[in-house]
């Protein structure tokens, strides 16, 4: 350009023109665009156009997703019935723990559910526990995957404390607190009074769990035989891979309130149908004041009923539109023209000339 720049911006030709010198002197740095930090680069900057279009774009993507999510969630029909207190006989409401621990008392309980809307099959049956710390570190660690998978590894009970072995030292299969505290309430469903609704318990667990994590030749041994009985018992003639209730239970929940899949009813239910549930109320949640709920729910592509996702999407989408509008207004009203040199610091506080 002129003399002033030619010394400050060392001309690029010096990079190429000195090849002869390079051979002469090995200390000369090799020229490459990489070493000279001159690699071609895209240098995106936040121009007003970009800012507005990014926010608008996010908004236009998020609002539909939010709407669709909300719609999906609203399509789900969910029946929830809390039965832990209701199933305690009135005489024992003051001593629920005593009630549940007393084997002599019959635990059968009947609940009526009214279907609020048509429910298309499959209708998923869940049990929901509350205030149950399946994510407690002591609990989560108390299992042994090797033992569950391989019949020959029955003695592998490391980590299963304090449910490793029976008092005489023979290993428990499956060992550990998780299996020991297996949920053991059972549900039977009738439509009206007579039509029995079959609960399909196949395929409620992950396929990979059944196939690879719970052995098809591993059978329960010494399970729940000690003097301290935790939760449910297992059919010792069925291999673990077929015990889907156990498999589901063994996938510990992230939060203290959780649902687990109990089975599927593969019949459509109509609005105002009355579903009679005959349940065995065996599981002790009374000690720690946890609730028990029975949930019948349909599912969409997005899963069960939860409006939060849709609302969150709509909020973020809305916010983006708001920001887009705000920035548009700002650029229109209080316009700093991009690339306006007047905003360089030396022009804002001009040195006194």
């Amino acid at each position, binding site marked *: 350009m002129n003399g002033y720049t030619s010394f400050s911006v060392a001309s690029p030709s010096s990079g190429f023109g000195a090849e002869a010198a390079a051979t002469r002197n090995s200390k*000369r740095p090799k020229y490459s665009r990489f070493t000279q930090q001159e690699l071609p680069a895209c240098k995106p900057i936040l121009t007003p156009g970009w800012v507005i279009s990014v926010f608008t774009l996010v908004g236009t993507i998020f609002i539909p997703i939010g709407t669709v999510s909300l719609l999906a969630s609203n399509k789900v029909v969910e029946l929830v019935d809390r039965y832990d207190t209701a199933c305690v006989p009135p005489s024992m409401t003051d001593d629920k723990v005593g009630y549940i621990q007393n084997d002599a008392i019959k635990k059968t309980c009947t609940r009526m559910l009214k279907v609020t809307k048509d429910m298309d099959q499959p209708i*998923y049956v869940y049990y929901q526990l509350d205030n149950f710390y399946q994510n407690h570190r002591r609990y989560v660690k108390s299992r042994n995957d090797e033992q569950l998978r391989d019949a020959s590894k029955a003695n592998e009970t490391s980590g299963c404390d304090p449910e490793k072995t029976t008092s005489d030292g023979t290993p428990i299969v499956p060992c550990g607190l998780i299996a020991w505290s297996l949920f053991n309430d059972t549900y039977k469903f009738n439509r009206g009074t007579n039509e029995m609704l079959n609960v399909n318990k196949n395929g409620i667990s992950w396929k990979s769990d059944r196939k690879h994590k719970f052995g098809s030749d591993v059978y329960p041994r010494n399970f729940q035989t000690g003097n301290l009985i935790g939760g449910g018992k297992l059919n010792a003639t069925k291999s673990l891979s077929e015990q889907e209730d156990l498999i589901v239970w063994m996938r510990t929940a992230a939060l203290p309130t959780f649902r687990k899949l109990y089975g599927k009813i593969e019949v459509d239910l109509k609005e105002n149908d009355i579903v009679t549930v005959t349940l065995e109320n065996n599981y002790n949640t009374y000690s720690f004041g946890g609730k028990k709920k029975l949930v019948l729910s349909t599912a969409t592509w997005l899963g069960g009923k939860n409006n939060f996702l849709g609302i969150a999407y709509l909020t973020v989408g809305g916010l983006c539109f708001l920001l887009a509008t705000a920035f548009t207004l700002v650029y229109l009203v209080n316009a700093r023209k991009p690339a306006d040199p007047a905003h360089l610091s030396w022009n804002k506080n001009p040195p006194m000339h």
Partner: protein
Amino acid sequence: MAGGRIREKLRWSKIYSFSCIRPSVQLDSDNPPSLQGPGYSRVVYCNQPHVHRKKPFRYPTNCISTTKYNVITFFPKAIFEQFRRVANLYFLLAAVLSLTPVTPFSAVSMIAPVVFVVGLSMAKEALEDWRRFMQDMKVNLRKVSVHKGGGQFGHKNSQNIRVGDIVKVEKDQFFPADLLLLSSSYDDGICYVETMNLDGETNLKVKRSLEVTLPLEEDDCFKEFRGTIRCEDPNPGLYSFVGNFEYERQVYALDPSQILLRDSKLRNTTYIYGVVIFAGHDSKVMQNATHLPSKRSGIEKKMDYIIYILFSLLVMISLISSIGFAVMTKIGMPKWWYLQPNNTTNLYDPSKAATAGIFHLVTALILYGYLIPISLYVSIEIVKVLQARFINDDIHMYDEESGNPAQSRTSNLNEELGQVDTILTDKTGTLTCNEMDFLKCSIAGVSYGVGSSEVEIAAVKQMASEALNAPSQHGTQDLWENPAQFGSSEIEPVNLVSPIVGKDKKPHIKGFSFEDERLMHGNWTKEPKADIILLFMRILALCHTAIPEPNVETGGFNYEAESPDEGTFLVAAREFGFEFCKRTQSSVFIHEKHMSGIPTEREFKILNLLEFNSKRKRMSVVVRDELGLIFLLCKGADSVICERLSKDGKMYEEDTRKHLNEYGEAGLRTLALAYRKLGELEYSTWNAEFLKAKTTIGPYRETQLERVADLIERDLILVGATAVEDKLQKGVPQCIDKLAQAGLKIWVLTGDKMETAINIGFACSLLRQGMKQICVSAMDVDLSGQDAKLVIKENMLMQISNASQMIKLEKDPHAAFALIIDGKALSYALEDDMKKRFLNLAVACASVICCRVSPKQKALVTRLVKEGTGKTTLAIGDGANDVGMIQEADIGVGISGVEGMQAVMASDFSIAQFRFLERLLVVHGHWCYKRIAQMICYFFYKNIAFGLTIFYFEAYTGFSGQSIYDDWYMLLFNVILTSLPVISLGVFEQDVPAEVCLQFPALYQQGPKNLFFDWYRIFGWMGNGLYSSLVIFFLTINILDKQAFRASGQTADMAIVGTTMFTAIIWTVNMQIALTMSHFTWIQHLFVWGSIATWYVFLLGYGLSSPLFSKDEYRILMEALAPSPIYWIVTLLVTAACTIPYLAHISYQRTFHPMDHHVIQEIRYYRKDVEDQHMWKRERRKARQETKIGFTAGVEAKIRHLRGKLQKKVSTLTVQTA
């Protein structure tokens, strides 16, 4: 070999006589110098190396090792080094504790990152050490010819040489150890040595053997050779040596001139024989090896505080957790039958809740360890090494002339380069080339030489440009529009002028630019005072320590001189017709062309040589001419010489002084020449004393010699003075101008005298006309002792306060002040009670020049600036005298020029030319500062964003210490999944390209103002991390709530929630860094998007591994997550929700508070710099800090001056300038 010797004889020793008085003298054997006592215990039995195999004479072998570690000590030592860092120690403890049941993670996931990170650092250490080892081996295995007994010499590895061995070193070989020279291929036992490796000096030094050992000139002679050396213990003094040589029942004194130092090179001598005195680590060069002081950048120091903050945060949330856990265990646990509370260990025992809580504190401290970025140190180290590579590889900082590229010697100060506030620079060799040109001289009160110095040319140019610009009314306007042209005409006067000078003359002789017909071509004989001129010439030709080397091409001689001044004197003498053509040990031969018409060669016997040192500031020779007359010829600093003139010798003093001042003003280095005639008797009495002093052994030798030299260097007669130009280095004024525009303050610290320093100040536009110069100097007082000091101090204090007052009262905002202070005054100013005031004054001045400063003072001034202002200082210098300053400053830069390697060895960065400093600071410093700052901020952000989600989850698990993430996720987070993008940010980020950095020097101020690493920004990033953690955690758990998460009805378990959350984190932190970056090459794209891809690939692979290994994550992606739309939708939502506030923030910032680089980026983006070049140029001109130094400031001052006049009256202006 014999043939070679004969040839040398012909060439060098034709007219030798051994009758000269040798500098070292034989002593009586019954009166040997006492070499008793500590420090003088070494005994060497020559040619009996076997004696030195056993105690007490067992000295180290010649094997050297500069490695930090060896195979055995590597692990303990390197590990110790690593765990001196608090963070690493913490991670080590965590890893150890992970082997106990308190750990929340599997042991491997705790140990692996520590091993990886520490292992990487150690591998780096090991590699560096391995390189050192290889280098040592190369040296150790060098073959050396050693006497094997019976007069046979054979090759041995250098490392096997022992003290007492006789070695033979041939031409251009390095000396394998410190040797005593016994004999050489020259008959008189001299040899030439190049000491470049030791002190960087390229000129050759002469070494002489003792006369008694001269006959040992063949291999056979060593058959029976025996001798004993008693000398000082190994020490680092390169220029000192005391010892005795006992040979054939006689004792001879040894001095440094017989010692050949390891790592110097034999030159111009076919071979030498020597005996090893100090081997291996005892050798002086090894004793000199010093360790660099370890320096840390300001950013790193601040980073430590952030680490402390994070540690406090860690302890705090750990306490919350453990209290929470204790409470939950106490209250909740007894009810949780499914945990079998009655059957627990201490960790969970509800009856011992407090104990459980304490155990849990340890667990929590490990669990939340992710707040502390384990990989931070390693990443920073990697980044800095790569940044350093870029500095080394920058072709724009490669000097074609010397073949030296820039070199980052310590990579941990890169970002500090972007924060420099004050530059302290040496003058000689740094601003100037240290290439001398003989320009003028004054003989017998007459000044000769009509050439003009660069300073004068610059002054003329400046005046011319002033005249050019003034007349037209539009002149100033044009200047504004076209500053570049104006600048170029002014800033490169050298380039413009020198070719013209070259054309009308015969080819330029290096070191000689003298033009005056009165002295050339023998015309001097016709001058009125030809006899004095003759003396002057002879002093030039005789009073030196140089060695002539025949130049085969020209048939003349090249001179190997100790200093460049000396070289120019010899060249000048040659041009005047006094060609110095030969030096033997005792004589100097001068080929005199114009004396009495016939060229003759004259021999001058050199009787004594009183060497130059910086304290004496003079050197003298005592010569006997062909007529047998004895003269003392002396040259030295004018002040020193003038003190020593005899009453009769002051004849020309007045005139010479006047000339000296003139030369000084023209920026020339001056020396005064004088002589004295000595009588035989006078000389011999003095000589006896001198010899006694010379053979003194021990610490007083130097002072003795000085005292004796002082006796004879008196009553001198002044002959004249020389003026030598010290050339400015290329591009220095431009570079200073640019640096000033970048807002940097520049102090010059020089050993030169005030006038020279001021003139150089003008030449490189640190000073300009119209600047108010404040000169502070210590007044001379006749009082002595304490009183004098008090008086001087009082006077100094007054000077300083007057000056401060003056600056305070100055109303003109453009007034510029320059402070010039000399070394003597500085020594007072640097005292505790005064330094504050002095610093305040100095900071208020635009330029500060300290002259006549000692190396120590340079370091002290640097410390004063560094500690007094609290700002970053950079010291730049090239010589050994700058080492103190370079080590003291925050950043030391060495010029890898001619003067030596010490400065470079001590420096953090080395460049070949001063002008590269601009690019080093303004481009690399600016980039590195921003890179590191952003990188560290981001590091803390990502670890807070991640670490806190673990904490939130605890609240949902009864604070039991369970993590929602799989151990492997956590392990990979810092090490693999998020490390490469941040490294690419740290290595490749560029806010603006290099040329823009250079064009807009004001951008540099972002560093010194620390805009990118202030607490506001750091806490902003931390807040961003907090926000992200909240959004990530709560959105995920609320969306993946208890309901089914997909069509087939399954609910989300911990593995699914954890993996989804982790996916969201990976996306968020990588999107965040993508938003932070402004410069995407394919590398950044690869790393950022590759990291996200890696996560999915890992998840897939992990899911495919054995279920025993992957546990609940077995096939999680394939079977559970990928087919579920909600997984992808959550990822999108969380990523957007986390980054949108940041996006809005930076958009807002850019819109309402744009920083300079934002606007420049936009200008470049819209290509306005190409379309509207007018604007671009205008902005470039304005883009600089208000500066009062540099030529631009000079131009501006002038324009202001003119404008002021214009406003008054246009006509006045035209009249004035006409």
